[in-house]
């Protein structure tokens, strides 16, 4: 590249900053012809609305999703995955309920399944939450830039996140189906083996679970349930999350003939706190209207009789649907994670097939 070209590239980058079209990091300059390469990967009408946001007078179209994928650094062939992710967000329902305007500050979370993972080089193994992989980094970023530029959710204005989360830059992983002893989450939800799919939802924290030396499935279930039920995360009555098991933990469970549902059941059985523990954090009652957790003596608290036994369990993980399990990460240590989701509880994951042209 000559010196003159480099200066042009810098000028283009600065232009995008001046227009406020970035997430703080530089974006890839996009021309009409480059955008056309993206749009050519889908049979969908570029003007099709994929996320309607009537209360903001905004619509995210296929073209806007493609433009932001290009800005994010995606290759054109990633677009079908990005579009499936947006469809999954619509199905999940929280984005169109204005969750990204909320003070909670949730991030988009995308999981990819099926043969498209290998075709576009999505990482499902070591450092799965970390940086270093173009497809993961840019597909996650395409969603965030689509929210900022397409839906107009700029921080300090319509995005009112109190603190947000680092996952807002980008949060896209793939399931390691090859190293999992079980069928993938997509297969569990009706996706065929030759098809690719995306599940999407909104999340708060991603928590490390360090359980390196255990050989007992029950101990793993105790660790995961305890973390998902931490009082600091409780705002709603119940806790929900994705369990992202590294292959070593998944194989340990499988060795003891535990299925994914066995592990979910074990987490539900351990998914409670005592009334006393909740009261110590001022979260033993539920608010009239919102149902959010607050102290029993708060004026908005629904009247209730405290249990006679303050050490009686209050169920926080209410059903198997509150937990979704995927396998990802390197099989090199007993380190897994929990993703604190913020979608509506008690539902199957929002899963959408990738439509490749």
């Amino acid at each position, binding site marked *: 590249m000559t010196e003159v070209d480099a200066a042009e590239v810098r000028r283009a980058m600065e232009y995008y900053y001046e227009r406020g079209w970035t997430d703080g990091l530089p974006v890839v300059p996009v021309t009409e012809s480059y955008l056309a390469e993206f749009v050519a990967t889908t049979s969908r009408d570029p003007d099709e609305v994929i996320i309607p946001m009537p209360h903001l007078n905004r619509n995210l179209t296929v073209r806007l999703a493609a433009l932001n994928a290009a800005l994010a650094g995606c290759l054109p062939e990633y677009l079908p995955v990005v579009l499936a992710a947006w469809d999954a967000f619509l199905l999940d329902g929280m984005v169109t309920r204005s969750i990204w305007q909320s003070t909670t500050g949730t991030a988009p979370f995308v999981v990819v399944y099926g043969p498209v993972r290998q075709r576009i080089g999505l990482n499902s193994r070591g450092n799965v939450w970390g940086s270093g992989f173009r497809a993961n980094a840019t597909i996650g970023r395409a969603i965030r830039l689509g929210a900022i530029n397409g839906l107009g959710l700029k921080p300090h204005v319509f995005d*009112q996140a109190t603190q947000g989360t680092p996952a807002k830059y980008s949060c896209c992983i793939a399931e390691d189906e090859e190293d999992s002893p079980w069928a993938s989450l997509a297969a569990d939800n009706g996706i065929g083996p030759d098809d690719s799919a995306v599940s999407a939802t909104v999340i708060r924290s991603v928590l490390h679970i360090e359980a390196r030396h255990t050989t007992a499935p029950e101990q793993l279930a105790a660790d995961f349930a305890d973390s998902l039920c931490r009082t600091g995360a409780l705002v709603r009555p119940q806790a929900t999350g994705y369990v992202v098991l590294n292959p070593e933990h998944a194989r340990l469970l499988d060795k003891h003939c535990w299925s994914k549902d066995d592990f979910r059941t074990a987490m539900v059985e351990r998914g409670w706190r005592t009334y006393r523990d909740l009261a110590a954090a001022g979260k033993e009652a539920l608010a009239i209207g919102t149902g959010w957790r607050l102290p029993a003596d708060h004026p908005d608290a629904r009247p209730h009789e405290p249990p006679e036994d303050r050490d009686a369990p209050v169920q926080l993980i209410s059903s198997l649907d509150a937990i979704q399990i995927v396998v990802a990460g390197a099989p090199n240590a007993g380190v897994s994670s929990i993703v604190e989701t913020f979608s509506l509880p008690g539902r199957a994951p929002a899963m959408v097939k990738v439509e490749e042209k």
Partner: protein
Amino acid sequence: MERAGIPAVSLCTDAFRITAEAMAKQMGFPGYRYVVLPHPVASRTEEEITEMVRNALPDVIRVLGAGLTYQGSAEVAPS
């Protein structure tokens, strides 16, 4: 509601002023009048909330009676 002729007043705390004004502009009513309350709400006692509402009541009534105000009106500033 105000477009339909029903008197209404929006209330928000000072922490949300930027968003409130962006929302008014987005909906085609730059300078829309609303009542600003001191932040926070969630962590105040019942007595503090009552006092806050009592203090805001004259503003609420004033904005409620003013009809739909927006850009072009002489009274465009949020109260």
